[in-house]
């Protein structure tokens, strides 16, 4: 498949950033490092450095139109779904590799992407009340689709936001709208249980926008409109709330619409804050270690980011939604 050249802007940043990384100790390195630091907030500790910015607004191949969800595979390839309903696959440096569309987008577009344990792409087809499964090459696995019916009964959904799989291959699917809950399904897609509900009380949610699951099968939920993180031990029945933190605010440690979560494998949790236009790094106990990003349109600035992923080298890729691009940082 023919690859699309990056835009001038992208090339510029890539050349600058790449050279800086290689020429350690050089003046250029210092300049670029300072430039990268400009993107950090003044509040709290921060150690982020912008490494690469790529992507341009558009509907052409490799272009992005309000991208809203992102996932990364074991080859560090980025899967991005945008406002046109296209799922596009890029190399870690932003080179377009392939793409496809979800079956229907008239009602709305997907807003959640993740990978299951088999390496298939899991798509939260939000406005069609279902979860779709694709091979990494883009083949729809129709037989694996979960849901598709609007409602509050078992196996029915409202607006699906995300789906993850535990070590036992069970799926957890979050939704918001009227019901705001998490449903658990067997590996075969059969309903097992549900919990949550719309509200501010612990165990309830208002827009559980994203989930990740750790090695102990604890489900971490970004309870976006309650501006907090809730952690559930899903090995128990019903799942038990084991940890929670977060309150609304812009200071380090506070949250403003946490929309995406990622572990770095070294005991840190990264949270993408839609409302604060930043990424915040936490210990697993909720202690803020720093944040990166301020609202804006320049490189190093974010505008309502929706998602982030961490590649094998530990670099953070941020989906800068309203700037229609991806920014890669080293924290």
């Amino acid at each position, binding site marked *: 498949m023919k690859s699309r*050249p990056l835009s001038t802007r992208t090339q510029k940043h890539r050349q600058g950033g790449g050279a800086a990384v290689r020429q350690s100790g050089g003046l250029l390195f210092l300049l670029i490092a300072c430039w990268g630091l400009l993107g950090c907030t003044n509040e709290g500790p921060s150690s982020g450095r912008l490494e690469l910015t790529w992507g341009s607004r*558009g*509907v*052409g191949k490799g*272009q992005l139109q*309000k991208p809203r969800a992102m996932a990364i595979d074991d080859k560090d390839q980025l899967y991005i779904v945008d*406002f046109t309903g296209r799922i596009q696959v890029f190399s870690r440096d932003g080179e377009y590799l392939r793409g496809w569309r979800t079956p229907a987008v*008239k*009602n*709305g*577009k997907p807003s959640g992407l993740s990978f299951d344990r088999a390496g298939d792409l899991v798509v939260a087809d*939000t*406005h069609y*009340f279902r979860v779709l499964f694709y091979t990494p090459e883009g083949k729809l696995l129709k037989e694996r689709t979960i849901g598709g019916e*609007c409602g509050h009964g078992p196996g029915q959904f*409202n*607006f699906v936001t995300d789906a993850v799989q535990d070590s036992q291959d069970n799926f957890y699917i979050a939704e*918001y*709208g*009227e019901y*705001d809950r998490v449903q658990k399904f067997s590996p075969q897609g059969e309903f097992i249980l549900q919990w949550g509900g*719309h*509200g*501010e009380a612990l165990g309830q949610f*208002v*827009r559980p926008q994203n989930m990740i699951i750790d090695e102990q099968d604890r489900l971490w939920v970004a309870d*976006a*409109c309650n501006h907090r993180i809730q952690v559930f031990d899903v090995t128990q029945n019903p799942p038990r709330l084991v940890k929670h933190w977060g309150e609304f605010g812009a200071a380090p440690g506070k949250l403003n*619409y946490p929309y995406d979560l990622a572990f770095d494998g070294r005991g840190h949790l990264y949270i993408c804050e*839609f*409302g604060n*236009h930043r990424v915040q790094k936490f210990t697993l106990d909720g202690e803020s270690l720093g944040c990166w990003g301020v*609202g804006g349109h320049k490189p190093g600035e974010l*505008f*309502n980011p929706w998602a982030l992923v961490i590649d094998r080298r530990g670099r953070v890729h941020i989906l800068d939604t*309203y700037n229609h691009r991806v920014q890669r940082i080293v924290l």
Partner: protein
Amino acid sequence: MAGWEIGFVKPWYLLLLLVIPAVWLLSFKSLSGLGRYRRLVAMSLRTLVLLLIILALSEVQLLQKSKKLTVIYLLDQSQSIPVDQREAMMEYVVRDVAKHRNIDRRDRAGLIVFGREAKIEVPPFDDDIPAVGVLDSFVDLNTDATNMEAALKLAQASFPEDASKRVVVVTDGNENIGDVRTVARMLAENEIGIDGVPIELDARSEIRVEKVAMPVDARKGQPLQTRVVISNDSREGKTVRGRLKLSRQDGSRTVLLNEDPASQLVDLKPGKNVFTFQHQIDQSAVYTFSAEFTPLDPQDDLMTQNNRASTFTHVRGEGRVLLIEDWENQGEFDYLADRLRRMKLEVTVQPSDQLFTSMAELQGYDTVILANVPRSSGSDASTVTNFSDAQIAMLVRNTQQLGCGLIMMGGPNSFGAGGWSNTELEKAMPVDFQIKNAKVQAVGALVLMMHASEMAQGNYWQKVTAREAIKALGPMDYCGLLHWSGTDNWLWGAPRGLVRISGRRKGMLGRLDRMTPGDMPQFDPGMRTALLAFNRCKASVKHMIIISDGDPSPPSRATLIRYKAAKIKVSTVAVGTHGPAGSNILQNIANVTGGKYYQVTNPKALPRIYQREARRVARPLIYEPAGGVTPGIVYPHEVLDGISEPLPRTAGFVMTSVKDNPLVEVAIRSPRPGSPKNATILATWTYGLGRTAVWTTDAGHRWANAWTEWESYDKLFSQLVRWSMRPTGDRGKFTVATNMKDGRVQVIVTALDENDEFLNFLNLSGTAIGPDLETFEVPIRQTAPGRYVGEFPADQQGSYFLNILAPPAAGSKDTRPQTLQAGVSVPYSAEFREQETNQALLTGLAALKPKQGKAGELIIGRMQRGQMSQLLETDTYRPDLAPAISAQDVWPQVMLFCACLFCADVFVRRVTIGFEWLSPLMLKIKERLGGGQVEPDDDGRLSRLRNQKAIISERLDERRSAARFEPQLEEQDALNLDEVLDDVGSAAPAPPPRPSAPSSAPSEEEESYTSRLLKAKKDAWKDKNNE
């Protein structure tokens, strides 16, 4: 620099370069004291400074040539081209760009579609054109004409400057608006190349209904003859059989005049065919006659759009009244209509969901009454209806230009309370529909919450709806708009949010244009913000409208209950992008707060809904005092002839503000509320050629019930209606005829007096109203005795109305000028007259040679889906055009550099730089590098000595200035200096001879001065001692 050149905006300033040699000559002498090298440097710098000033004056620029090419495709989407070929054009563009666009050069492609006007579909950008099914611009593109001129102009304006430019015009060449040749020459002058892709039209038979001929004016019962002219342009001289139907339409009623199917069958011989119909009309009205021909074999006709033509005629009779009532409250004015009929007026009642659609329909009426009818009504998105802007414009033009009467009658859905504020109708009325009096508590507050981001063209529709809502509010009302832009933000007036409209309306509309609402995560924070603003606001009616695609998280129950407790209703508009799920949230918000819920699938319904909802805020304009009020007569208006007080009580009316205009006559007024300006019951004025009146209470259904028992009820309302009617007096001996030829309408007026003698030297003036409701003057001149002729262009499809003002008839009571009316119908656009490709035009366009480039090409081939390989053979991105040159002004930088050089010039001339330190430094370096001692040479020593001397001289100068009156000290130091020099001289060549003493005169003068001073000092001491 590679690819860069230098250019000048004002090259004639370069003549100043001739001054430079003169400057050299002058400077050579004046700078001789500087020494050889310094003079050379100073002169060079001076020359450079001068050169740079001249460059800056001539506005020097850096020019870069670019090989990049931008091609904009102009697609003719007019209806003269068959649909399948129009659709194939898009495929051609996509494939042509994909095949020929040079990616390395970063060529760009753009797309413009045109019909009656031109619209940009894809602005030029450096990528392939995405293959989309339907072009977005088609939604609003008028395709009933071909305007290539507009397309070329738009293309010229859309080209980026940094690339060569070419347009590829895909068309049948049948231009019927504008002059493309003139614009094309302009493009060639501007180095823009033109390629033409002619669309070959199939050669088939073509049938056209040329016209329906009727007398413009007729009288009741008069036999009428209607002639239908049809042309048959059959290629093979074939007779075409088909059905010809002639229908007559009066308002919404349509009657087929030749109902018998057998009588409808006609044979069209090649050439023109004329068919005549005889009939009679017994009721006065304006009738539209339409003829339509349908061939039995569709293959006999290429275009069906030109198979129908119409005309209208006015059959005069008694005064006719059109009473428009709210379709949701039908029957409220039945009593009034009945009473008017008894007073020998013909009254037609029209519900507001079956409104007139053309000016022609209004011509049959002498007065139009808007009877408690709101601008927008309906209970849900599918039933909500409104008066469109065009319909309001028709009502107003019908009065202003054609003299028809217009009366607005009250009820709770009329005037400001009916959402008529800030419309053209308000301008036509003798009162304003809003209260500008802060003492009257007629204030509403409206908050708009915007979240329709996923809807197609969501931002556009949000702006349209907000604009409608703001327009509907009065100056004393409050308005706020909440949207998501990173957080929930007020668009204006933050942090209060809700601000008075008064004086800010334009600013608000301006901000709306810049609004770009984002994807709001949840409703709750925004609703809580709005609630705070509502609670701080003193409005008597508070309302909120949320437009959303329904996917933000719902508000908390507590928030909704707080809204309910504060009696703030929230109406929600679901734009239906996410199916029923999103709607449930919005429906719940509306249900809990008592608002209205709308589910919209067609965004065009949104403005109607917003007009409807904004009416809620205008409720305080309704005045319903306990026990009612008894209005009084304040002016003896002719409408009130024979009517005297006391007038009956009325339970209420709608408050308005009397226009500050001497033409306004307020006839009846209520004693309450306090301000008489706002308590009008009946007011009238003359608006243009017509008369308008307002009656702010109703006609006896809800408020004026007592009036129906009143003996003067019939008299009052019939006199009001008759006063307002358009002049319907005897038309005398004027006759008007119209004739249309080559897109122009000729109007011929024949004027005779009572004795059938020609009326000469009359001052006739005409005003025409086109199908777009634009009015224009028609000059009418006398061409023969009693014969007056005027002419105007008619290039749009539809009806043209002409109003001719003639002097009042001799002896007539009505002193208003007589109005003579005429009209003409243009059945279809000239677009449907052309049947062949105008290849000559396209060949001419392509042959135009752009400046510094090659002429374009005519790209011949079949425009059909999947079969356009021949068209794609021509490379539309061929590099045979003048390269684009982008210019960058550098004169500011040149000036800056010039300023630096000027400083350097001054420095060189004023400051001497010693280089004595250089040799010792070199020696030291040599020492270091050589590793041994190197004896300083004599020159080095000498220079050190000179340095030493300079230092000592400097000290001496300082001391001299510090002890100016002690010359001995100076002498001493001088000796020391000589000693030093003598010491050194033993190891060095003889020092240069001491400079000769300066001329004695100044020395003597100095000594005498010093001695005089010493003497004066001694004298002073002496005097002191003596004392």
